[in-house]
């Protein structure tokens, strides 16, 4: 090879390296832009909602019933409804989900039976939420005669977030080393004692993460609640759960009609009158803030657990 061709080769190689480095550079810029499209949208959306709804951020908005006049309309029945529905959702999804997760991880032997349950759980996580609404409409509203009540809505959302709770329970249980269980068995603990006193206690944080994410999802779900036929104009509160005569607890509220925050928002934003859109924006901002706080807390908790636990 002559001197000249080596030099020519070298410059070619140098040009190639330069070109490839340029590719790297260009791609990282495209990558940042792509990432920003995803991230900045949330920011835009959030600012848009706050800006549009800014006229309605006051306590009166939270203490007023819906009204035909936009400026008098408030969220009272919606947030009370959301709270009560979430209570039922919590009471159904958490015990059932945690129990199911415990069974699948600690009790079930690996056979066709546990396979079927597992396939079911992962499939349920992919079912569109509106299909849960159809299930509830056919089963709870008409099949069991529960009507379009708080109980129906709570049970529906409970089933909807069940896979989330089950999966997070299983994941956090799986992270506990076998040695912990063996140590408990070695001092004579029964299976349930091992599960309750050790497995459940140590996986508590991880389960909580899943529960909070599930509850945030339930708070924002609109489609299944609309499908069961929830009324949108509710100018009353459900009967109080606490009464002043024994037995001090009152369960009439379970069968009461209701509305929830996302439904109220949907109702307002589908009206032609622009004044109601302001209410919708303000409601949207409130929903976003609450769900972001819940999810943010859960995600922080998860990262903290991941860092702190060293078995």
């Amino acid at each position, binding site marked *: 090879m002559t001197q000249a061709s080596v030099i020519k080769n070298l410059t070619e190689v140098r040009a190639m390296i330069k070109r490839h480095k340029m*590719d790297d550079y260009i*791609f990282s810029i*495209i*990558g940042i832009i*792509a*990432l920003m*499209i*995803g*991230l900045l949208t*949330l920011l835009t*959306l959030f600012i*848009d*909602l706050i800006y549009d709804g800014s006229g309605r951020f006051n306590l009166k908005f939270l203490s007023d019933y819906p009204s035909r006049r936009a400026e008098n309309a408030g969220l009272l029945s919606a947030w009370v409804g959301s709270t009560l529905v979430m209570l039922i959702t919590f009471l159904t999804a958490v*015990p059932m989900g945690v*129990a*199911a997760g415990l*069974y*699948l991880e600690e009790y079930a032997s690996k056979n066709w039976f546990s396979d*079927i349950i597992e396939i*079911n759980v*992962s499939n*349920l996580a*992919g*079912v*569109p*939420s*509106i*299909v849960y*609404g*159809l*299930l509830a409409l*056919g*089963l709870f509203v*008409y099949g069991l005669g529960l009507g379009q009540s708080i109980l129906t809505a709570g049970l529906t959302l409970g089933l909807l977030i069940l896979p989330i709770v089950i999966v997070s329970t299983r994941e956090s249980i799986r992270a506990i080393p076998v040695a912990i269980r063996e140590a408990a068995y070695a001092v004579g603990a*029964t*299976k*349930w004692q091992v599960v309750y006193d050790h497995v459940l206690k140590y996986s508590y944080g991880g389960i909580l993460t899943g529960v909070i*994410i599930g509850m*945030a999802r339930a*708070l*924002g779900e609109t*489609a299944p609640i*609309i499908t069961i*036929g929830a009324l949108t104009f509710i100018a009353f509160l459900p009967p109080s759960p606490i009464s002043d005569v024994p037995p001090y607890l009152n369960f009439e509220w379970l069968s009461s009609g209701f509305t929830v925050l*996302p439904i109220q*928002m*949907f109702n307002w*934003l589908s009206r032609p009158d622009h004044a109601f*859109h302001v209410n919708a924006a303000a409601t*949207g901002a409130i*929903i*976003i803030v609450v*769900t*972001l706080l*819940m*999810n*943010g807390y859960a*995600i*922080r908790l998860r*990262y903290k657990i991941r860092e702190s636990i060293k078995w």
Partner: protein
Amino acid sequence: MNEFAATTISPRLAKNIRRNIKERVIELILMLAALSAVATTVGIVAILLNESLGFFKTVSVVDFFTDTQWTPLFENPHFGIMPLISGTLTTSAVALIVAIPVGTIAAIYLSEFASHKVRETVKPILELLVGVPTVVFGYFALFFVTPILQNMIPTLPGFNMLSAGLVMGIMIIPYICSVAEDAMRAVPMSMREGSYAMGATRFQTALRVVAPAATSGIVAAYILGISRAVGETMVVAVAAGQQPNLTFNPMESAATITAYIVQVALGDLPHGSIGYQSIFAAGLVLMVMTLMFNMLGHWVRKKYRENY
């Protein structure tokens, strides 16, 4: 032996028996809770099939799939599901045209280019974005994106599939990005190092080594994204319109399967009427569509998974 059995059992043994019974009962209760997942699936399938069977007694299956009009609530009802399917597919297609390229590029950037610090900051934010309720995105589509689009395309109607699809796409980006990034992170470092040692740049490594190795996970992310787009309700119900329309033109207004269900549920249809049954038939079609995508996703992930 018999003498032993005849004597009263010791308190300690009795306690053991009680304990064993308690253990059995607890196991049974936990198993019943686990079975609730199966019961939910059975419930969904049973309700959808049962109400749909009633529907198909009145409407022939052939009409259902060939009629080009969907007007169950009119005087002269037509029950052709195709307009709803075309609406669903069009909005989903628009969403995926946005979400797949942007999500993939963002995932590659995050996994292969971004510094540790950037990745640790962005990942939780992506997870946060996945949790934003969809009705809020509906507001965004109708009152923020549609006016902007109408400025650019003056003929665009107030309700259109383009705006709904775009917002749905933006909504799915974090989801696709997050799942695809996980798949690429799972590719062992030694493969990247091998590639770098041969003199490859980051971009070459990402494109020719990491992405092919993570194909199964990336494709599964796409398919799960499709399944989410098909089942998405609130954005399309708010922004795409409620009128069933057999078109694949995103500039038009059209109803999706999910929007139709919402529209009927908002009205006051008597239980057992053909309109009431029609939402279950529509729901069955939706369920079958998403189930197909979900199963395809699991299959792709299993079949093309590389083991390192």
